[in-house]
Each structure stands twice: as C-alpha cells, then as structure tokens.
C-alpha cells in the first residue's frame, strides 16, 4: 500500500509509464523502478554525505585517511571556528534579507509585467518576451562592469540595495517570461465577466488574476529565494564590506591561493546549505503543487 502511494508522485516523466502498468500487473518491473530510484537518490545524496563526513573530521584525520573514511572522533571545532571567524549569524541574516526581498519584489515586478504582456496583450509582446529572455541568459560576467559603473555613479556600490535591485531585475526577467505564458491561457470568460461587472484593470489584477495565480506566484517566490541565495559572483563584487556579505561569499574566505582546508570547507558548506534545505522543506508543498497549478482553474 505504502509503496503504491509513494511511487507515482516521485516518478516523473520517464518513470510514469512502467509505474502505471505496475498498478495492474504488480510485476517485477516496479521493483526495478524502485531500485533505479534508490540508486538515483543515493547518487544524488553521495556528495552531501561526503560533506557531512568531512565536516566532523579533524584536518589531520582527513590528511591521513582521505575523504571517504569515517571520522575517528566527532570534531566540531572546524564548524565553530568558521562560525566565529566570519560572524556567520550576520551572514545568515544578510542572505535571508537579500534573498527574501528579491523573491518578493521580483514576483511583484513579474506580476505587473506579465499582466501587461500576457493578459493586456500589448503590441509586440513576443519580441518583448524574447528580449526579457535574452536579458536573463546573459552571463553575469558580461554585466558586471556596466553594473559596477552605474552603481558607483549613483552611490550604491557596496550596498545591499544594489544587489537587491540587480537580482530583482534579473529574476523578474525570467518571472515575466514564465508568468506571461501562464497568463496567456488565463480563462477569458472570467476576465470578461469581471469587466462586465465594472472592474477596472487594476481591480481585475488584484481581485481576479492575483488570487487565481497565487500558487504559481508562490512557486516563483521559492525559486527566486533559492536562486538568489546561491548567487556568488555579483554579491562577491558588489558587497565589499564583510558585514554586508552573504553566505556564499563568506565561504570564499576559505579558498586560499594554493592550499585548501577541506574539513573547514566541508563544515562551512554544511552550515551554508542547511538554511536552504530548511527553507525548501518548509515550502515543499508549494513546490510540488507545481507551476501549472494556477494556469487553468
């Protein structure tokens, strides 16, 4: 019972066909699928397991018996040292603040843009959407000098506000693209009915479109949060003062010129990834509800 319940949601695309046949035949194939899934899960978890193993090892232990051995003692100093050295609590707050602000602001901007492009049907919307997509695909390295120049001219260099603005724009470019295509399939009847009821464009957006697309929007919030959380390059260049930096930038402190400190790096990586995992678990229900949920209801 439990297996049949658990299997369908965890087997997307390629697993879906055999899984359905199994329900009727209950053959050996379902065990093969299960074994493949377990193998896949183990492969995915392996790097994480290596990090956990090495996070609790002394450097000498690591050097003597390599990365795959079990730790001989439970060693927490690496983690504690790192926490104090980079003032991790503050970095955590900075990351939450930047990623959270970007997630919310970018979704709001995407909503406005997509309303105009997907429902408002402005002229040349296809080329506008393509433009957004291109903006989203540009590598950050290509953007960095112009961004730096502008930020420095307006006095926003070395401020978190600059990073929030940049990522709001970058993320909302993707958000606009996605939401615009979701909105283009928005049921016309509802829009017409509300227009007949005398709702203005603004009212239609907030009282009809926004509530109905809420599941999609919350998925975007989660995506934007995690993507921004993991960003390294732009925060690295823009957040100069240590007290403004985010977690991925703080991890960079451990990367030396010639030597690396594998155990402390593992401990730090573990510290850095835990908040993202917690956030994901929190919003997992929202995620699994899927992007398509809000499309037609």
């Amino acid at each position, binding site marked *: 019972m439990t297996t049949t319940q658990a299997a369908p949601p965890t087997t997307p695309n390629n697993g879906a066909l055999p899984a359905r046949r199994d329900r009727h035949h209950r053959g050996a194939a379902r065990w093969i699928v299960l074994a493949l899934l377990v193998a896949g899960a183990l492969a995915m978890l392996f790097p994480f397991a290596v990090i956990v193993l090495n996070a609790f090892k002394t*450097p*000498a232990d*690591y*050097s*003597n018996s*390599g990365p795959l051995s079990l730790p001989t003692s439970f060693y927490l100093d690496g983690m504690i040292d790192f926490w104090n*050295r980079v003032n991790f609590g503050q970095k955590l707050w900075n990351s*939450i*603040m*930047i990623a*959270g*602000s970007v*997630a*919310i*602001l970018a979704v709001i901007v995407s909503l406005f843009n997509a309303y105009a492009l997907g429902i408002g049907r402005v002229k040349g919307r296809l080329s506008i959407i393509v433009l957004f997509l291109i903006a989203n695909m540009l590598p950050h390295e290509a953007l960095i*000098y112009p961004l*730096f120049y502008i930020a*420095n001219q307006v006095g926003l*260099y*070395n*401020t*978190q*506000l600059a990073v929030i603005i940049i990522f709001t724009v970058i993320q909302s470019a993707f958000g606009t693209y996605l939401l615009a295509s979701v909105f283009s399939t928005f049921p016309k009847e509802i829009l017409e*009915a*509300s227009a007949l*009821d*005398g*709702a203005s464009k603004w009212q239609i957006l907030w*009282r*009809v479109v926004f*509530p*109905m697309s*809420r*599941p999609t*929007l*919350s998925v975007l*919030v989660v995506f934007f949060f995690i993507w921004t959380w993991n960003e390294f390059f732009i925060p*690295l*260049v823009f957040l*100069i*003062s*240590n*007290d403004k930096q985010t977690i991925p*930038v*703080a991890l*960079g*402190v451990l*990367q*030396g*010129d*010639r*030597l*690396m*400190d*594998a155990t402390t790096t593992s401990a730090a990586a573990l510290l850095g990834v835990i908040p993202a995992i917690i956030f994901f678990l929190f*919003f997992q*229900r*929202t995620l699994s*509800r899927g992007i398509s949920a*809000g499309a037609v209801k």
Partner: protein
Amino acid sequence: MTRSRTTLARGAADATRVPTRKLLAGTAMLAAGALLLAACGGDDSDDTTGSSDSDDDAPSGEGETITLWHYESENGAMGIAWDEAMRIFEEETGATVEFEEKAFEQIRQSANMILNTDEAPDIMEYNKGNASAGLLASQGLLTDITGAVEEHGWDEMLSESLQTTARYDEQGIMGSGSWYGVPNYGEFVMVFYNQDLFDEHGVEIPETYDDLISAMDTFVDADVTPLAMSGAEYPAGQLFYELALTQADRQFVNDYQLYENPVDFNGPELTHAADTFADWVEAGYVPGDSAGLTAEDMGTSFIAGDYPMLFSGSWWYGRFVDEIDGFDWGIFEFPGSELHPGSSGNLWVVPTASENPELAYEFIEITMRPEIQALLGNNGGVPVAADPEDLDDEKSAELITLFNEINEADGLAFYPDWPAPGFYDDLASSVQQLINADASPQDVLEQLQLAYDTGVDDFLN
C-alpha cells in the same frame, strides 16, 4: 455592483487553498520587515564610513583611522604576525586600524573595481606578478612608493630576486621601474623527506644530483615510488622547471621570466628538463598514475607516509608541522642547482585612493621589524629579513636557514607559469603527457614553445 465584486474575489480566494495564502503572506511580511531593516542597515554603515573619514578633525587628537585588508588565515604565520604588527601600530601611532579579512577570490575578482571607488582601503595585501600587482600598477591604481622604500631602507633588506616582484614598469612588467609594493615573506620550492622511510631503506640525505638519483634507485629497487607527484596541478610543472634550472644561469631566468631575450625551448636547459623528466617517469621515480592527481592528493599522500619524498613549496610547511605525527620529516634543497622556483610572497600595496599613505608606510615599516619577522618565522612562515638566531622554534629555523641560503645566493627563479596568462594550463597539460608517456620530449617542447611564444606575444602587445 459592490456585491458582485466581493463574491468574485471571495470565489477566487476560495479557489486557492488557505495554507498557500498564509505562507505567502508570511513570507511577504518577513521580506517587508527585512527590507525596512535593510534600509536602516544601509544608512548605518554609510554613517560609520562617513564618521571614520571625518575622524581627522575629531577632537580626540589621535583619532586617525587606517583601513587595512588582507586575506591570510588568522592563525597562519602571516595572520599572527600581522595581527601583532597592527597592535604595535595602534600603540605607537595612536591611530585605529580597521581591519577586514577578505576572501582571496574576492580580491582577485574585483580589486580593479574596488580600488576605483571610495571603498578602497588605505593599505592592502595583494598578489605579486604581472597579471596582478603589475596590472593594477599600470592602471594607476597603486601608489608609486619608491620614495618611501628608499627613505626606510627596505630596498636594502630585500635581495634582488625578492625585489623583482615588487617593482613594475609602465606596462606592468615586473623586474624594473618603480616600487609598488613590499613583501614581508618569501616562498620557495624544496624537497621534503620522510626520515623514517630514509632510515628504513638506509638512504642518506642527498647532497649532489647523483646522490639523489642513487637514493631514488634504492627506493625503486625496494618497490617504493620515491617521489609524490601531482600532474593535474602546479607540482609537475615546478619539477620540470627545476630540472631546467639545474642547467641554467640567471640570464636564462631573466629571458624566461622578464623577456630579456627570446627563449629557445630546444636549447640545452629545457631539452634537458624534458628528457630527464621522461627518464624519471620511465625509471619509476614518479608514480605513473599521478597525471590526474591534484596537489592536495599529493600532499595528503605524503602526510599519510606513502612516499619518501615530496618536491613542493614552503606553503606546505605549516600544515606538515601540524598534521604529520606518524614519522619524522625534514627538508633539503634540490641538489645540483643554484636556482630554485620561488619568489617573494604577496605584497603590501598602497592604493592610489588611500587617504593615509604616510600611516600605511608606517605600518609596513613595523612589519619589517625583526620582532615581527621572527614572529612570522616562528609560526611556519618564511620571513624575508629574519635572523635564524631570533627563532625559538627549531623546525622553523631549519626552514628559514635554508631559505636564507638560497636567497643570499640570489637563487629564487620565480615560477614556470608566470610569463603569460594561461600558460599554467599549457604547461600542466604538456607535462601530463610526459607522465603518461603520450608524447615524446621533443613534441612536448614544441607544444610549449608555441604556447609560450603566443602567450608572451599576446601579453606584451
């Protein structure tokens, strides 16, 4: 009309489940709060920068502030020594040091941007070399400190080869021109050996090149691979270069590193290096499977006691002291050569945007004092101007004595990958082919000649 609108809205709200709404609202509130705080945070830090700038006219009298950045770990040799230097500096000048530990990666990626803004520090550590300090100097971002160097006599404390990386010409090429930085420490490449394995096989510390060969033969006969190696990163290239240096003089180094004359890879030095390297691989002196190993793999295998010898740099020293406890170990100079890979360490540089260059020079002066230099040495670093007599730690004295010998003979020959950006990868892949015996020494030399010539040509023009 109002009624129908509300029904519509409620209907729509019902369509989405309550939990989503709550979550979304919660996140929104959190983010809104965060934004507010961010605004405050931004203002706060602007204020502090503002006040630290205007500290000059603050009534406290001694209230000057100097911003200092470096990227050494706080319990490494440099971290400890510089911490003490900052303490002495604050005590003697009455100024406050605002120190921030930076990430190497951050400085590497964005120094040329930071130094163009108000956020630039008054003094910072920066990587030596054409592509690093040289580039910033040629862009006018670093202060020409020649005057201060002469005034404080730092030039007399540093040997010719240490000075090379502190001076850059208008094009940013090291070796001549004005001073743009001062190194506190050096680094060099030597042989680390495992005393227990040497004793076990009755091998003496080699004093000549032939001694080294016969020592390695003894190990090979006993089925022990003598030399730990990493083909995927810098160590193999450095061994290749060292082998060339056994046949070279200072002029070869100047040609290769400072572009004084064109370098012929079919000349005696580099031909010897390629042939000898291939011989060593064939004789089993270096592990045949080491082409794909990283420097970290090489180091940990030596720490684990798997190899009697390791040819690499002083940057391993502190780590070996901390982590090797299963056997005795020591160091010796690669025999048969006056010249060895090595150079000054990173530099103290004074950005052009520095508001307090005089105080910055004062700080550099303190770092060059005997007590700070000795502190650097006692913690596993290689001070540029230390007297081994001042060192309490026996192990450190061994390292610094060796460095001083090489340095006094002006034997630092820099690193093989320095001449051109990207040459590091070319060198690594060529020497990898030697380890795998995929290509003849002749082919490897031809590849290197081409890579070197195009790389240097691109760099100079």
